[in-house]
Structure formats: structure tokens, C-alpha cells
């Protein structure tokens, strides 16, 4: 599907196939996208009063807003690169209520990849904000819109990242999945916890023991807050406050990520009503082997935050 609701050749063939298979679903897909309001010319975080619809990516409150189309690029600045452009465009909507800011991110993906598994990768999306845009802007050869390092900040230019992961959404929705969910026919006749008890068995789960966020057994939010200052420096933030939810229906992911506008933490981004802030995005398509630097990214775009 292209942004204006026209079908490209491939999705037309897919849609035709679905119709031929007896489903009215393909017609639904066309209508589903076409009924949407038009594309916005600039990215605006609209002011709302009361709670934001952070749990409802399909709600009218979101879909009534014009989407801002962001052109995604293959990450080719540092290896490893993705092998193809798997997600050419991301639709962004934003809202705030003076306390929290929320982003609605939407893109086409017909294959849901929501498991972290050997030789398999998850779908995910990330929003990135500069921690100190004024300082970055003042630095030589940088400007708020163009000069900031396009991916994951740079030494001395910290960024704050909100990373939603389909696999974490699975954990939140259905409970943390086990090896049995990945391999239904597997059998394990003896586990450390069975022999030693949970507490003593923890050393046999090194990621859990080390406190790695990937390995966390309790998952409260599908979104991870991270900081970075250049490639390879991505680090989980000590304070996790981001919330949101993602769903995939009819071949599209719709994901809401939200965070406090001012968490009072100097290592996180602060968003002020009535100001403009640069924001950048990244999307991963698990089916295509996307993970880490094998991703689609977008350059900084300015976002107006309504007063």
C-alpha cells in the first residue's frame, strides 16, 4: 500500500489473491487505509486535556488525526546494514496533555514477528529525542533539524530512545513466553529450578542474573527507555516510565508510545508545550532479519508541541 491509499503492484496482487481465496478481507484493507484523513504537512503534537489514549492505538482519537508521513531510509552509515528497505514509510501522530506526550506510529507489515527466538527477530519501532537539543544546536556544525547525528546520537550528544518491541508486547499481553511457546513439542526433563529451587537456579539464567532488560521475567511495559551517545552505545535507562501498546491488524502495526514530558531527569529528554523539538524514528521488520543496526531510520524532523 502506498501512502495515498493507492495499491502498488505487489499489494494489489496480494489483495487479488485474498479475494480469489474467497475473503472480503482485501477490500477491507483498501477501505481501512483509504478512509483515513489525509497526510499532515508537519508533525504536530496536539494538545488534549485529560488522559491520553495510550492503550488504544485503534481509537478514533488517534485515527481522526492527520498522519505525518516519515520517509524511512535503510541504515547504511555503519555496518551491519539491512539487505533491503523493508519499511519505506512510517506514519506518525502525536498528542500531549501538558504532562505526558504520546506518539502513534503506524506502518505496513503483513507478517507479525513477536518472538525473540534463535534465528528469528521481532518487529519493533523507536522514537528518539535529544536530551539537550539547545546544547546540540549550539555545538559547531550542528543544527536542530539536520546536524544531529541521525542515528543514536553521538559522543557528547545524548539521545533518549523509546523502543517498543512486538515481543515485549507479547509478554505484556499473554505473559512472558517460555521455550514451550517457541517450540511446542519440546521436552525438558530436568531444569535447574526443579532441582535447586527458583532462587538457587538463577545463576543458570545468566541474562536474568545479570539484570539484562532482554531477560526480565516481569514485563510491565512493552516499551524500553534507553539512552545512547553514538553507535553501539545503547544502554537501558535506570528509570523505566514509558508506556504504550501496539497491535497489528490487517497488515499494519499501530503502536502508541508515551512518556512524561518532564521526568525531572537530566539524562532524559524534556518536551515543552509551545516549543519545537527534533524527533527521529527507526523501524525494524523481524521477518527481514532486521535487528540492531539492520533497520530503517529517519532523519530528525521538527515537531511542534502545541501550547
Amino acid at each position, binding site marked *: 500500500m502506498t501512502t495515498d491509499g493507492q495499491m502498488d503492484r505487489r499489494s494489489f496482487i496480494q489483495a487479488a489473491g485474498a479475494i480469489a481465496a474467497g475473503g472480503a478481507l482485501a477490500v477491507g484493507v483498501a477501505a481501512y487505509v483509504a478512509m483515513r484523513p489525509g497526510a499532515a504537512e508537519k508533525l504536530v503534537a496536539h494538545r488534549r486535556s485529560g488522559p491520553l489514549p495510550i492503550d488504544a492505538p485503534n481509537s478514533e482519537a488517534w485515527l481522526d488525526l492527520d498522519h505525518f508521513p516519515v520517509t524511512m531510509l535503510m541504515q547504511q552509515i555503519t555496518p551491519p546494514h539491512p539487505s533491503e528497505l523493508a519499511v519505506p514509510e512510517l506514519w506518525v501522530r502525536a498528542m500531549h496533555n501538558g504532562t505526558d506526550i504520546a506518539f502513534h506510529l503506524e506502518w505496513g507489515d503483513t507478517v507479525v514477528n513477536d518472538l525473540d527466538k534463535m534465528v528469528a527477530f521481532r518487529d519493533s519501532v523507536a522514537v528518539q529525542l535529544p536530551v539537550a537539543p539547545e546544547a546540540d544546536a549550539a555545538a559547531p556544525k550542528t543544527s536542530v533539524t539536520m546536524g544531529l547525528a541521525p542515528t543514536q546520537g553521538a559522543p557528547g550528544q545524548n539521545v533518549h530512545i523509546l523502543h517498543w518491541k512486538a515481543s515485549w508486547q507479547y509478554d505484556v499481553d499473554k505473559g512472558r513466553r517460555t521455550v514451550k511457546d517457541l517450540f511446542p513439542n519440546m521436552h525438558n526433563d530436568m*531444569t535447574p529450578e526443579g532441582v535447586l529451587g527458583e532462587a538457587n537456579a538463577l545463576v543458570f*539464567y545468566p541474562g536474568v542474573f545479570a539484570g539484562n532488560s532482554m531477560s526480565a521475567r516481569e514485563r510491565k511495559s512493552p516499551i524500553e527507555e534507553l539512552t545512547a551517545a553514538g553507535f*553501539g552505545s545503547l544502554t537501558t535507562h535506570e528509570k523505566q516510565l514509558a508506556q504504550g501498546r501496539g497491535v497489528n491488524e490487517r497488515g499494519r502495526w499501530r503502536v502508541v508510545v508515551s512518556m512524561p514530558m518532564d521526568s525531572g531527569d537530566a539524562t532524559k529528554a524534556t518536551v515543552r508545550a509551545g516549543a519545537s523539538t527534533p524527533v527521529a524514528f527507526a523501524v525494524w521488520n523481524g521477518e527481514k532479519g532486521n535487528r540492531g543496526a539492520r533497520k530503517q531510520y529517519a532523519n530528525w524532523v521538527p515537531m511542534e508541541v502545541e501550547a
Partner: protein
Amino acid sequence: MAEVNNWQLGRTMQYPYPENRPKRQIAWVFDTNKCIACQTCTIACKSTWTWGSGQEYMLWNNVETKPFGFFPTGWDVELLNVMGPAKWANGKLESQTIFEGVPAGERVKGWLPAEEDWANPNIGEDEPVGVAQQGTYIPSMPHNEMWFSYLARICNHCTYPGCVAACPRQAIYKRPEDGIVLVDQERCRGYQECAQGCPYKKVMFNNNTRTSEKCIACFPKIEQGLQPQCVTSCIGRIRIAGFISPPGEVNPQNPIDFLVKVRKVALPLYPQAGTEPNVYYIPPMHSGRDYLHQMFGPGSDEAIKTYQNTKNDPELLGLMMLFGSTERIMHRFRVEGETAIGMDEAGAELVRVPVREPSWVRTYFDEVRGAYNHNIT
């Protein structure tokens, strides 16, 4: 890219990070000729480190039958596909390593085995090359049409690890104190780039914790001067672990140096990959020689010759008898007459063994009982 010295290739090579050798490097020698594929090592490792859920498929140590056994399936075939055949001239590698001629957008030449490739750890067991017909017999060794051999494998704790080169987060590191290569369980984000980049396929993704894991060389044992589990449990006494001197230095009293640098009887596995692996193999003397050239490089014929002369080489023979004789790391050895002695770092004696174990050859016919002494096993 930095230019680094890889002594196994007889040349320098390109590597993403500058040469930075550890203070000392742990290394192993495996005598493939003595391995019986009993998998005791595999189970020793499994029951020590990888019996958690999420690690079901992991075998940090595995033993495969060559040429038709592999874990994961076809790993070495894929490696040769990725690199092409090795070309050597006068001990120098002329072909490219996994770090050279890398396609745009990749960090190393690698591949990710499919899920099912991990599902058959003992595929090809005991399958020989060639088909035995009625009346087939093997008149002499090596026999190019009819052979198989066992290859015990662990992580090579490479000097230039492919896994380290592939990780975009520098979440894998080589310990300066002993050269052990470890995945930082705090930093790993489960990208599996290491699993893709390791030419030996010795990094594995934990399906429960969602991070990558690999052989840790039993570092808690090594820190106490003990050899790893796979070494001390080996039924065939095919293994020895110790520290190898850096390139250009040789200590003939050091067991690893003696085998690798003095007698040159033990060789790295697929050195053409360029990682400078630190597990050294005494090649299987009955296997196809062309195959061995590809697998162990140009020194394999000479190594086998030296090995076959062991009975006339008291020092080598004595050292071979010291394999599997002590749990402690042997830093030095000497042979005195009919006794081989292993020593610790301070020179204190750890163990002494006879160079030749007493043996008795039964007579063909037992006169007392009037019976033939058949081998009835």
C-alpha cells in the same frame, strides 16, 4: 580496519580492532586419533553449564564425525562456501579470511544457520566416506576412499574472534588476563550477529533469556589453576589445556608450546578463517589427506609424520602420556628416563606417569587349558 599479525597465516591480515594480545592465552590440544566419540565431554559441559531452559539445543562442546557429521548441520561446508577453498603458498595464506573482502554492509563474512540445523547434533555419526561392498577391505592407511574420524569441538577462544568483530555493540570481549572470550550478559541485546559471524558456530542464542551465550572455558576453574570440565572428564585422555606463549616466543618445557611450536604436531582448525583459534588438533592420521589440508592447513602431513614417530620420540611420548593425568593446569613438563613429570606454574610437581605402561601380549594358544586365546570382545 587494522592490520594485525596472524602467525597461523604467515602474514598480516585485516581485522576491525588493533592487535591486542592478552597477558596470556589459554589454549588446548586435542588428539583426534584418541577420541572415541563417547560424548562424555559433551555431557560434562552440558550438565555443568547449559541445563537451563532456553539452552536445550546448546552444546558448547560437541563431538562430530567427519566428514558427514556436523553441529550445526553443515557448518564447515557453509564456512568453505563463504570463504572459498584456502590457498596456501610456502606456509602463507593467499586466500582471504572472513575479515577480508567482506561484502558491503557486513562486518564479517558469515551466515546464520537455520533453526533445524541445530536439531541433529549427532548427524552422520560413524558414517565413513565411501561405500563398503561385499569384500571391501582396507589394505593400508590412510585410505582415501574409506575413512572417518572424530572431531571434538569447543569455542576456540580465538585471538581475533569473529564473534567480537561481528558484534556492533562490543558486548563480547576477550579477557586480558587469559584470553577467554565472553559474552557480556549485561550488554548483549540478542542481535545474534555473533552467531552469524563466528566461523565455528560456537555462539548460541538462549531462547529463554534472549541473549547469546557461548563456552566460557570454565573460567572459574581456570582461575583456580584447574583445567576445564571437557578436558578433565575426557575418557580418551585426548585433551590438555594450558597457556600458549605469544607468537615469536617458545618455551619447550611448556606442553602446549612443545606440541604446537616445537614438534608442530598440533594444528589450528580451519586457520584460513583468520580468527587465530586457540584449540589445536593433532590431525586424524587415517583420514583423507586432501580433506585434512583444507581442515588443518599445509602442516597436516608433517604433523601426522611426527605423530606416527611418537614411539621413537621420548619427549613427545612422555607428554602424550601426561594428557588427562591431572586436573591441574600443567605449565611445564619433563621426561626423565621412563617417567614423565608435569609441573605447575611454580615448578612444583603435579604428577608423574610412566612413559610406557606395562603391557602383556597373550599367547595365541593357552597350553595349560588347551584353548585358543581369541579376542572375544
